[in-house]
C-alpha cells in the first residue's frame, strides 16, 4: 500500500431530529413514554400554579394609597372583604420599618443615615466587579477593615454627633445585613487559622483547634445565641452592659468560623502534597508557604463550601429573634401583626423571602463567577 492516498470523507450535517430545538425537545422532554408523561404532568402543574400566582402577585395586587382600605373591596353581599390580590400597600407603608428598624421609621429626618450607609457600600462594591480596576485588594481591605467603622458611625451616630440610634433599636434588613456581614468577614480569617491549625504538626495547637471546631459544630446556633445573650452577662460584673447586638455578632462569628474552617480544611486536603514540598524546598517559611502557595489554591477549591456556609449563615441570622432582636423576618412578622395590618402575613413572608432570595442567589452566582475567573486550566 505504499502509494495509497488518504482522502478524508466529507463531513455531513447531523440528522435533523438530533440537533436544534426539535432535537432538544426529543432528548430532554420526550425521550421515553415515562418522560413524555412526566412532561405532560409538569405542564399541567405549571398551568394550574403559575397563572394564579401571577394574578395574586401582580395582576390583582394593590400597591396604591397608604391605608389598609386600599386593599379592601366590597363583596357580593355588600360586606367589606380582602381584595383578591396581594396587598403590597402594606409593604410600601412599612418599608422603612422593614429595612431599617423602628428607630429610623419613626425618625424620618434620620433615614438618610442608613440609606447613605447602604449607598456607600454598594458604591464601594461596584469597582470590585470592574475588570480593569487595579486596586481591588486595597479597596477590598478597606471594605473589610474600614467600612464597618464608617457604617457604625453613620448608623449609630454618636461619633459624628448625630442623634444616637442605639443598637437595640436597630432592626429590619439593616440588622440582618450587619449580623451576616460581620459574621462572614470575621469568620473567614478565623476559619483559615483554625483550618491551618487543625493540620498543624504541633499537637497542642492541633488538639485545641479540633476541640474548638468540634465544640461549635456540636451546638445549634440557637443555643449559641441563647448562651451569648443570657449566660455570657453572668460572667461579667453587673455594671458591664455588653451590647446585645455585639454579643449576637460574636456568637455568630465564632459559630461560623468552625464551619468555614471545615470548608477550608477540605480545600487543604485536596491539595497535592507536592505543593507543600515544593514550597518547603524553595525555603518559604510556614506563613509564606501558607499565604503564597497553599491558601490561594485551597481557598479556590473550597469556594463552593465556604459560600455555602455563608449563605446558610445569612439565613440563620433570622434566629436572633430568640434573643429579642428584630431582623428582617422578625420585623416583617411583627409588622403584619400590628392591629392595622393584621392578616397580611403572606405578603410579609413573600417580601422577606424575595429579599433573602436576591442576596443568597447573588452570593451563589458571585461564587460561580469567581470560580470561573480563578480557573487557570490546571488538570490537578
Amino acid at each position, binding site marked *: 500500500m505504499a502509494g495509497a492516498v488518504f482522502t478524508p470523507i466529507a463531513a455531513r450535517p447531523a440528522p435533523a431530529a438530533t440537533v436544534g430545538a426539535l432535537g432538544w425537545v426529543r432528548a430532554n422532554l420526550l425521550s421515553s413514554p415515562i418522560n413524555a408523561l412526566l412532561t405532560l404532568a409538569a405542564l399541567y402543574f405549571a398551568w394550574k400554579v403559575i397563572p394564579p400566582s401571577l394574578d395574586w402577585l401582580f395582576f390583582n395586587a394593590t400597591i396604591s394609597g397608604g391605608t389598609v382600605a386600599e386593599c379592601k373591596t366590597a363583596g357580593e353581599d355588600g360586606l367589606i372583604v380582602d381584595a383578591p390580590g396581594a396587598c403590597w400597600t402594606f409593604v410600601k407603608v412599612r418599608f422603612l420599618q422593614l429595612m431599617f428598624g423602628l428607630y429610623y421609621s419613626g425618625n424620618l429626618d434620620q433615614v438618610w443615615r442608613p440609606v447613605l450607609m447602604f449607598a456607600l457600600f454598594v458604591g464601594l462594591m461596584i469597582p470590585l466587579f470592574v475588570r480593569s480596576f487595579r486596586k481591588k485588594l486595597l479597596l477590598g481591605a478597606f471594605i473589610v477593615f474600614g467600612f464597618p467603622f464608617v457604617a457604625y458611625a453613620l448608623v449609630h451616630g454618636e461619633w459624628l454627633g448625630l442623634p444616637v440610634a442605639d443598637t437595640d433599636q436597630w432592626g429590619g434588613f439593616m440588622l440582618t445585613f450587619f449580623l451576616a456581614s460581620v459574621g462572614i468577614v470575621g469568620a473567614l480569617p478565623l476559619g483559615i487559622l483554625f483550618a491551618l491549625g487543625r493540620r498543624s504538626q504541633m499537637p497542642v495547637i492541633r488538639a485545641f483547634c479540633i476541640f474548638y471546631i468540634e465544640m461549635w459544630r456540636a451546638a445549634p446556633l440557637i443555643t449559641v445565641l441563647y448562651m451569648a445573650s443570657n449566660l455570657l452577662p453572668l460572667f461579667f460584673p453587673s455594671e458591664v452592659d455588653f451590647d446585645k447586638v455585639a454579643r449576637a455578632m460574636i456568637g455568630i462569628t465564632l459559630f461560623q468560623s468552625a464551619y468555614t474552617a471545615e470548608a477550608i480544611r477540605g480545600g487543604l486536603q485536596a491539595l*497535592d502534597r*507536592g*505543593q507543600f*514540598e*515544593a514550597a*518547603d*524546598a*524553595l*525555603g*518559604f*517559611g510556614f506563613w*509564606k508557604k501558607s499565604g*503564597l*502557595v497553599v491558601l*490561594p*489554591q485551597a481557598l*479556590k477549591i473550597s469556594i463552593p463550601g465556604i459560600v455555602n456556609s455563608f449563605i446558610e449563615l445569612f439565613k440563620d441570622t433570622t434566629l436572633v429573634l430568640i434573643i429579642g432582636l428584630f431582623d428582617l423576618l422578625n420585623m416583617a412578622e411583627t409588622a403584619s401583626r400590628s392591629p392595622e395590618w393584621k392578616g397580611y402575613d403572606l405578603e410579609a413572608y413573600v417580601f422577606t423571602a424575595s429579599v433573602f432570595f436576591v442576596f443568597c442567589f447573588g452570593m451563589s452566582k458571585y461564587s460561580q463567577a469567581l470560580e470561573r475567573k*480563578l480557573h*487557570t*486550566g*490546571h*488538570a*490537578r
Partner: protein
Amino acid sequence: MENGNTENTEKPAQNGGAPPQNGNGEMCMSLNAVNKWYGEFHVLRDINLEVCTGEKLVVCGPSGSGKSTLIRCINRLEEHQEGRISVNGIELNDDLKHIDEVRREVGMVFQHFNLFPHLTVLQNLTLAPIWVRKTPKNEAEEMAMHFLKRVKIPEQAAKYPGQLSGGQQQRVAIARSLCMKPKVMLFDEPTSALDPEMIKEVLDVMVELAREGMTMLCVTHEMGFARTVADRVIFMDEGQIVEENNPEDFFNNPQNDRTKLFLSQILSH
C-alpha cells in the same frame, strides 16, 4: 555556576573522606552514619556520603531502596533520626534557621514538577526570589527570563503551568530552582513522569547544567545520562549504599553481585 564559596566553614577533619573526582575539591555536602526509620521500617541504614563542590552524583537502585528518601533528607523534606548531615557547613538539625539556610542553598526538582498551578510560569520563578531572597521584583523577573531562556522556553513565561507539556513543566521547575541560585541541585527522578519524547529535552537541560559546574545529585534511571555526566554512580538497595564507583567501572566492571543483577535487569532491553 556559583563558585564564590565564602560560607564554607566546615571543619577540615570532615574532609578526609573519598578523594574528589572532579570539582575544586571543596566539601559541599557530607552525610555521616545517617539512619532513618519510617515508623518501624528502617529505610536508610548507615549512609556515609561526601560530595565535593562541582561533583555530579547519580543515585540508582530498585524502587523502595531509599534513594529518594536519601536526597529528600538533604533538604529536610524528610527528617533523619541518627547521624549527621551537613550542607555547605550548615548542620541539619532541629534548628529551623539551619533548615531554612540549607533550603536556600539546595534546589530540588521533583518527579511530578510541583509547579504552582495558580501562578504563571514567570510568577512561579519569581515567587521565591522575591519573598525568600527579598530580590526586587524587576530584578527577579529579569533573572527569571534569563533562566527561562536557558531552559529554552522564554516564550511560555505568561502561561500557566497547566497549559504546558510535561517536559516544558519540568524545565520550568528546573529554572524555578535555579532562580534561587542554589549551590547544589537535587533531582528526584526528574524524567520518570514524562512521555518518552520529552525526556530528552529535560536531560539536555540537565547535561548543560552539569557542564556549567553545578553540584548535582540525581536519582534517575537514565543510564545514558549517568554515563555522560556523572562523576560517581551510587547504587542503593535495602537502604544501604551497595556500591559506589565512577561510571566507567560501575557499568563495565561492577563489583557487587547485587549491582550486577540490577544492571543486567535494567540494561537487558
